């Protein structure tokens, strides 16, 4: 299928060029002495009094050149390698909600929720990797992600995604993954991906930097995800949002490159505008959809793996707004060539996760993946001979050709109704959320991912205890 585009080639080049100028002239605030010293040693113009780093164009270009265009994501057991980058599509559940919607009420996330979400995601065929769906808040905050990591490793074999809140947390996660895989260097064993965000406009806080640096040192692929808030932390115009985003991303790319060359970096984005009437950030407006498309275009221009949040919604309950926003955000991202799509299972602008929604999102994703699979035109699929054989006024229900393509040409829904009114009433008469809830119960009751070894369980628990005793 042809891709969606909102920018011309010239416009992309202009955004790229202006980004280089901003990096070189305005610079980026780096709130960490060690990083500033490292940058200074590598030819970055550093103003130590103002913590400001001005990046020369040549260094940015070098980082772009040496960054891998793709990498292989592995599952927990170092198997099922999947290429990330190029035309590939990788769908990830998650990511870092605060609440879980249960019986219409917002409840604070728990470790058990993380385990349950991982279990459900492990069952869903369109979900390729599993992110921390909700931040557990029933354990000490400084080690909450370590508890989450254990719960995920124990309940799914799929590749994992983390967005460590602190450098401390990143260190803990790296230690768990190194111990679990038995690898000192994770560059060739990508079973997890990290994410880190600068603070817009044009600032790297110490902890975000720490996450990026720990990730690069360990060889873990990192999604660099600037989140300029249009009109608040970037100029209000969409072109400027892209520009601020891109400059921030490139600064992160250079830092990662200088820490360790050749570690995969993902061109990430969480497009957010600021609704000036409600005074709230919004991730599923038409502008954010145009931004998703533009972002994918720029990422592809660089040839880097592209990430974007989707499917998303700003609705707070299972209503029509939720459904259409989920579909349009995902379809836009999918159709513009994004490689990694994170946020399945969430709504309320990323504040709420829902078991039912994760199952519903899998359905939406399956539907839309079939759309972009397109239509295959060959001698076999045109079936000219068959049309001749059956002839006018015949039918095709009893043909081998029909049988051959019956299960591969079409997508079959898991939840959506396709029965006639009578049959629907007879079968259940239930709406999609009720049906999703039943699936959730089934998955939680019946599914069990291959278990971790007792030794691994013990080792991970020891690491968690060790970090729990430390102050972050």
């Amino acid at each position, binding site marked *: 299928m042809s891709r969606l585009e909102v920018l011309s080639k010239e416009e992309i080049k202009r955004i790229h060029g202006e980004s280089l100028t901003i990096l070189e002239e305005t610079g980026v605030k780096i709130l960490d002495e060690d990083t500033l010293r490292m940058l200074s040693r590598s030819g970055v113009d550093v103003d130590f009094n103002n913590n400001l780093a001005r990046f020369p164009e040549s260094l940015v270009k070098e980082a772009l050149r040496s960054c891998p265009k793709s990498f292989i994501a592995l599952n927990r057991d170092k198997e099922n390698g999947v290429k990330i980058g190029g035309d590939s599509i990788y769908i990830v559940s998650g990511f870092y909600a605060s609440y879980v919607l249960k019986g219409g009420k917002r409840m604070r996330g728990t470790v058990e929720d993380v385990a349950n979400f991982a279990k459900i995601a492990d069952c869903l065929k369109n979900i390729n990797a599993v992110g921390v769906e909700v931040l557990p808040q029933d354990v000490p905050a400084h080690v909450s992600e370590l508890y989450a990591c254990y719960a995920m490793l124990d309940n799914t074999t799929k590749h994992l995604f983390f967005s460590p809140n602190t450098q401390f947390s990143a260190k803990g996660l790296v230690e768990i993954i190194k111990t679990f895989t038995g690898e000192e260097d994770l560059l060739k064993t990508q079973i997890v991906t990290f994410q880190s965000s600068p603070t817009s406009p044009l600032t790297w806080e110490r902890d975000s930097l720490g996450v990026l640096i720990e990730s690069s040192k360990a060889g873990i692929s990192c999604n660099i995800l600037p989140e300029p808030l249009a009109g608040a932390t970037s100029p209000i115009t969409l072109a400027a949002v892209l520009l601020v985003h891109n400059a921030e991303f490139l600064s992160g790319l250079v830092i990662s490159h200088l820490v360790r060359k050749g570690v995969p970096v993902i061109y990430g984005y969480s497009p957010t505008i600021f609704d000036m009437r409600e005074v709230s950030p919004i991730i599923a407006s038409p502008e954010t959809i145009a931004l998703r498309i533009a972002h994918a275009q720029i990422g592809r221009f660089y040839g880097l793996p592209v990430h974007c949040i989707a499917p998303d919604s700003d609705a707070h309950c299972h209503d029509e707004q939720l459904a259409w926003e989920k579909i349009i955000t995902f379809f836009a991202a999918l159709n513009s060539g994004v490689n990694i799509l994170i946020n399945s299972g969430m709504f309320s602008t990323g504040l709420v996760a829902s078991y039912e929604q994760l199952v519903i999102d899998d359905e939406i994703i399956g539907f839309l993946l079939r759309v972009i699979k397109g239509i295959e035109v060959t001698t076999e699929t045109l079936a000219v001979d068959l049309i001749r054989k059956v002839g006018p006024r015949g*039918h*095709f*229900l*009893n043909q081998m050709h*029909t*049988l051959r393509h*019956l*299960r591969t040409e079409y997508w079959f829904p898991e939840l959506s109704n396709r029965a*006639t009114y*009578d049959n629907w009433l007879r079968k259940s008469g239930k709406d999609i959320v009720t049906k999703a809830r039943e699936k959730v119960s089934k998955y939680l009751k019946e599914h069990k991912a291959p278990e971790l070894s007792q030794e691994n369980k013990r080792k991970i628990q020891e690491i968690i205890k060790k970090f729990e005793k430390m102050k972050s």
Partner: protein
Amino acid sequence: MEKDHSRILQNLRKAVEEFDAEKAREAAIEAVKSGFDPVKAIEEGLAKGIKTIGDLFEKGEIFLPELIMAAEAMKAGTQILMDEVRKRGLNVKKLGKVVIGTVHGDIHDIGKNIVISMLEASGFKVIDLGVDVPAEEFIKKVKEVQPDVLGMSALLTTTAPEQGRIIKMLKDAGMRDKVNVIIGGAATSESWANEIGADAYAADAVEAVKKIKALIGIKE
């Protein structure tokens, strides 16, 4: 010998379950050649296969074309076995007689024909009146054949009332309590069946067989 017999039955059953008419024919020929009881071959071989397929269809695990192809495989095998039945002067007891047709003004026959193949595969004798059948023709045939069940198909909203008209004509002729009436087709529904006084409605061919069996008191 015992082993041979179970293999023959298994081949017949599998041919139907694999929607394979050619295999069904071969298995039937083999059964005849080895002197196997043709009635048993139909009832415990082919029919078992179609029962499995019908159940899978109801569960949504196989699809309509597979159901049709399975019924066709059943038919291919049955034809050969029935020749043998006649040759030996044996008898296959039919489950019942069904007169079926698409009502006047409606020329749609795919759905009706699927119902017919499933009924035949399940052991019913079916008298097919075809499509665009005038109401008088339905009445005449019911009088003449005295079937257990009359089936009427209507795809169009404009032709569905014809089903009601025929039921009324049956009543007027004093024949309504002598025959069970089942309706089907895209324009019809359970509530439509109630409205016009039909005995049953079926949404698909497998359900049609089930409902017809229930109407005439045959246990599954």
